[in-house]
């Protein structure tokens, strides 16, 4: 049913293929069989209410959730049982919701922390071109002394260096001022134009609608619907019901 709603004409197999993904936090069963796909070069957004399982989905793909079952294929390779360091080495990069800037590292060390996993990552010049503010703050002592927006940019910038071409961004706009959100939106558009594939989790639907090619709706640990950005108008009523806005 969902397949029919997706773009037709995708001849190549998807970059990321998630099927029947289940995940547990300790005893609590969070994901109950998540199915979706991301094709190369797409920006796909997972939408849904708080606690629906969006973040858990990203973490499960990244291999951070200890107990998971089902299938996650990246570039056709099964990674459901791989460790997160192994998954990262395949070219999957993750920017967590809490941003994960390290207090014991200065800004430059934070930026340079993730090791290169593939050739072809952005150079520092390209990164400073995307995020001019970061360049000025490079010599700042502690990464956590940056503003929220700067921390978010740092968190995105550091994974662009690594050569990973598939980025998972968990709520990159959360708690940020509109002008910063616009900058992040422009960044995502530019990354897309340069061929990056992005899986986004967002609460901010208006923001997501400006950057995403397709949406999936997550509810109670499952994908319950999905549609292309082009069909957004026709799906607005449903969307309001799903998101409760």
């Amino acid at each position, binding site marked *: 049913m969902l397949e029919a709603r997706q773009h037709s004409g995708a001849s190549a197999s998807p970059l990321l293929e998630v099927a029947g993904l289940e995940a547990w936090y300790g005893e609590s069963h969070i994901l109950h069989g998540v199915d979706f796909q991301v094709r190369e070069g797409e920006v796909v957004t997972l939408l849904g209410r708080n606690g629906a399982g969006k973040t858990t989905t990203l973490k499960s793909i990244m291999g951070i959730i200890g107990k998971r079952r089902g299938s996650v294929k990246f570039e056709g390779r099964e990674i459901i049982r791989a460790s997160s*360091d192994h998954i*990262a080495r395949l070219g999957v990069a993750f920017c*967590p919701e809490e941003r994960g800037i390290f207090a*014991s*590292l200065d800004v430059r060390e934070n930026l*340079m*922390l*993730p*090791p290169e996993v593939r050739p072809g990552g952005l150079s520092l010049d390209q990164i400073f071109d995307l995020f001019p503010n970061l360049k000025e703050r490079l010599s700042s002592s502690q990464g956590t002394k940056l503003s929220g927006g700067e921390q978010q940019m740092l968190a995105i910038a550091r994974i662009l260096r*690594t050569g990973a071409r598939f980025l998972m961004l968990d709520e990159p706009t959360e708690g940020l001022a509109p002008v910063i959100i616009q900058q992040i939106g422009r960044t995502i558009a530019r990354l897309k134009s340069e061929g990056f594939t992005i899986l986004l989790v967002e609460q901010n639907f208006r923001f997501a609608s400006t950057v995403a090619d397709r949406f999936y709706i997550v509810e109670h640990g499952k994908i319950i619907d999905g549609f292309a950005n082009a069909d957004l108008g026709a799906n607005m009523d449903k969307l309001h019901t799903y998101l409760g806005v």
Partner: protein
Amino acid sequence: MNIQALSAQLLVGLINGSFYALLSLGLAVIFGMLNVINFAHGALYMMGAFCAYFLLNLFGIGYWPALIIAPIVVGLFGILMERSLLQWLTGLDHLYGLLLTFGVALILQGLFQNYFGSSGLPYAIPTELQGGVNLGFMFLPIYRGWVVIFSLVVCLVTWYLIERTQLGAYLRAATENPTLVRAFGINVPRMITLTFGFGVGLAALAGVLSAPINQVRPLMGADLIIVVFAVVVIGGMGSIMGSIITGFALGVIEGLTKYFYPEASNTVVFVFMVLVLLLKPTGLTGRAT
């Protein structure tokens, strides 16, 4: 004031401070990465000294190679210990790691006592470092000067490694958020194992350094480690520079106390510990979280 007696005590203080610094540095590195309070640290220090003793008496391998071989051998023992025992305690309360390593320390010390008794085994000062120099105000045995300088260099190199290199950035980041560092593609479990091996290697190195001064005894570490824990508490758990400075400083303070008020020399470190705990519970250089 007898300047000669004072400088002699200062030197003893610096020597003790060297051992405090090397040992508390290893403890701090291990605590930062593994969240384990390694009570076996004193026993591993003792094993370093015994390793040097065996190398010399069984294989005819002298002091200089032992400085490298003993830390590697004992470090590998530490890696075995981490892989077989400590790794299963990840995520549990500190108390489990403390009890486990305390048990390991008792077993190791018991084994060595069983075979070698409690009295000291001699280990000669290498010929290159025998003798001393008269500094005018005091006589400086060359070996003791060497221990102080070499320890200081090892401490500073370790500090540089952790605070100023990319490898150190991985270590610091993994101390804060191991899950995320692993999700960047770094094999954190392997890094934890190697860090434990490194910390243990530092203890073994201190053991080799101390062999010619304190003799090789099964309980040599048990006596020392209590003071070293006080040093770690004063310096701040997990702070690298804090452990180094506090280690040397408390050795010197102990030495000065021996000169000015010998009765208090065994307790002065613990008095400091109580004061620091009352006034600044995170330790002098501890990072508030």
